[in-house]
């Protein structure tokens, strides 16, 4: 779950990390009032979850409250990568003498939380890695103990220098505490600005929470931005499905993420175009199939649906019952192609057969079948 900058900075502040004074505004008048209470030049920053705000003109400086109001009027309502800006952060402008980068993120290969720091902040870490790889320091934190001052402060110092070492260490400690207490998968400060007075301050920040850990932090769910998922994606999530909308015309309902992706890939390979990714997950009960079909049927321009189930923990009879339930309750105006194999396959096929439905056993046959019935091609595609 991704946070907006103003939310991320709220957490940094709570964990003792210096951030510029600021608050979010959703109207120009509010922006003006906040700027005037801050009482110094401010930054007016679009609050959207996509990157590239600055380049899109979504970040501007204002010297007076009147100017903040005008800049907020410009930015509110503008679209950045298709996302409408609904809020701006009004934050005290920081005099910047130098820009650093520091982040904590899950590192898959070392199976640790990894700290990345650099004296070249202010640009994307990917860009720093590409242009100045020798200016990046990376080190894993001890998975049992977290950051260890005796060894880790030195490593951090190689990015921040001796003079800022104590401040950088305090920031890292705060970041780690936030990371571990709130179950984050990313805490990033970029730039971590050095003021002319030699103070470090988090000029911009990103925080991502681990969705799998939200059961431990139910209060965080309220912070979720509607920008992160489309309405259909939210609908799917609340029904225990994992769904990503795409722009094709063949709806897919598959069990398992890997097979869902492979099914999309195969549809494309045979000349069709997938309308979505949808994993009904394991232990699927019939309701899940019903909900999956309901969500997919909302897709504009849908030409056919492929249900591809290879039962393991998912039982084919549950799926078959779900399909019948869906046929009773929903109108399905497009061809439905079913492929069913694996756990309780015989029972599943028998249930379908009784209702006059056939199911493929072979995936390639099923995909070719659905591509033909979607009308996109003759189903041969690359596979000719």
């Amino acid at each position, binding site marked *: 779950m991704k946070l907006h900058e103003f939310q991320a900075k709220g957490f940094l502040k709570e964990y003792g990390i210096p951030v510029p004074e600021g608050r979010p505004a959703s109207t120009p008048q509010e922006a003006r009032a906040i700027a005037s209470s801050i009482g110094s030049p401010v930054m007016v920053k679009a609050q959207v979850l996509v990157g590239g705000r600055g380049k899109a003109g979504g970040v501007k400086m204002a010297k007076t409250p009147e100017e903040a109001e005008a800049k907020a009027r410009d930015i509110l309502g503008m679209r950045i990568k298709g996302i409408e800006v609904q809020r701006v952060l009004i934050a005290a402008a920081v005099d910047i003498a130098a820009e650093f980068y520091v982040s904590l993120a899950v590192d*898959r290969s070392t199976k640790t939380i990894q700290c990345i720091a650099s004296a070249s902040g202010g640009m994307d870490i*990917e860009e720093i890695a590409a242009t100045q790889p020798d200016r990046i320091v990376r080190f894993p934190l001890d998975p049992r103990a977290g950051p260890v001052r005796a060894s880790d402060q030195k490593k951090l110092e190689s990015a921040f220098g001796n003079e800022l070492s104590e401040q950088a260490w305090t920031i890292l400690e705060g970041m780690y505490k936030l990371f571990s207490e709130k179950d984050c998968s990313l805490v990033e400060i970029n730039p971590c600005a050095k003021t002319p007075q030699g103070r470090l301050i988090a000029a911009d920040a990103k925080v991502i929470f*681990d*969705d799998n850990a939200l059961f431990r932090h139910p209060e965080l769910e309220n912070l979720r931005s509607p920008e992160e998922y489309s309405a259909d994606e939210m609908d799917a999530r609340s029904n225990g499905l994992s769904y990503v909308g795409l722009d094709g015309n063949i709806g897919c309902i598959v069990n398992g993420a890997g*097979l869902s992706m492979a099914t999309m890939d195969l549809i*494309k390979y045979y000349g069709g175009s997938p309308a979505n990714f949808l994993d009904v997950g*394991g232990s699927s009960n019939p309701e899940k199939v019903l909900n999956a079909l309901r969500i997919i049927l909302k897709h504009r321009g849908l030409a056919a649906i492929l249900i591809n189930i*290879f039962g393991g*923990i998912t039982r084919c009879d549950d799926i078959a019952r779900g399909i019948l339930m869906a046929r009773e309750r929903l109108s399905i105006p497009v061809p439905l192609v079913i492929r069913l194999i694996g756990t309780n396959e015989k029972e599943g096929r028998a249930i379908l057969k009784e209702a006059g439905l056939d199911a493929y056993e072979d995936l390639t046959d099923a995909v070719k079948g659905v591509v033909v019935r979607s009308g996109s091609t003759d189903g041969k595609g690359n596979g000719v």
Partner: protein
Amino acid sequence: MSILLGPDTRVIVQGITGRDGSFHAKSMREYGTKVVGGVTPGKGGENVDGIPVYNTVAEAVERTGADCTVIFVPARFSSEALREAADARIPLIVCITEGIPVLDMIRDVHYVKDRGCRLIGPNCPGLISPGAAKVGIMPGRIHTPGGVGVISRSGTLTYEVVWALTRAGLGQSTCIGVGGDPVIGTSFVELLALFEADPQTTGVALIGEIGGDDEEQAAQYIAQNMKKPVVSFISGRTAPPEKRMGHAGAIISGGKGGAEHKVAALRDSGVPVADRPDEIPTILSPRVAAHAAGSPKGA
């Protein structure tokens, strides 16, 4: 021989009284696995279809001599279950559960390793040595004993590949789902090493997907260390960036983890990458034959 799991492996099921735990305990036993017990705190003394249930893992191990455990408990209790298994020093811990917080896994994988145990998963289908035993949720009947080792980050996609191998007359030595989470107990490279050393295994099917760089590391390892032929398949070629594709670990992020890069890394290491799952047997078969005849990597 197979790897990790054989006919004499003694298995307990943590979470055996739950819907999935009980269903799959029976299914594993039907397949021939020695399911010697189960654990559900507070239900000790009961039985599931004749399989004795114990209150703790330690008790189950003491009473049954189990050397493998499979975990079916819900995500919020999984960490506790994993640590209990590691504390009882069970050599092979297989965690099926999906949705475990990543920070729990970071702590737990090291906890398990420190106690000398191996973890497969989480968020995985488990493993099977066809004809000998299965520990997990895969449908047994699609497998057949033979020489192909199968390693995968996915569950159902693995079944797809196994089914294709079986239909093509290529049996399997051991099939392992390593799990779809970003942090998992055992990675591709460790299993490739076991397969390379296993006399029954004649070739390997490696099934990867978008996210992370396990496939790239495997490619490098294969180029440097493996003599047996390996064929790969990568899913997610049509996946959009910055979207999590079902698995917590399946995400192209910051321009990294895309399918094209993985395919290129594998091909550069001399590993053929199939365009479709059912192509794997066609590509693997002649290489296995050539390798058996003495040519390196079946080239």
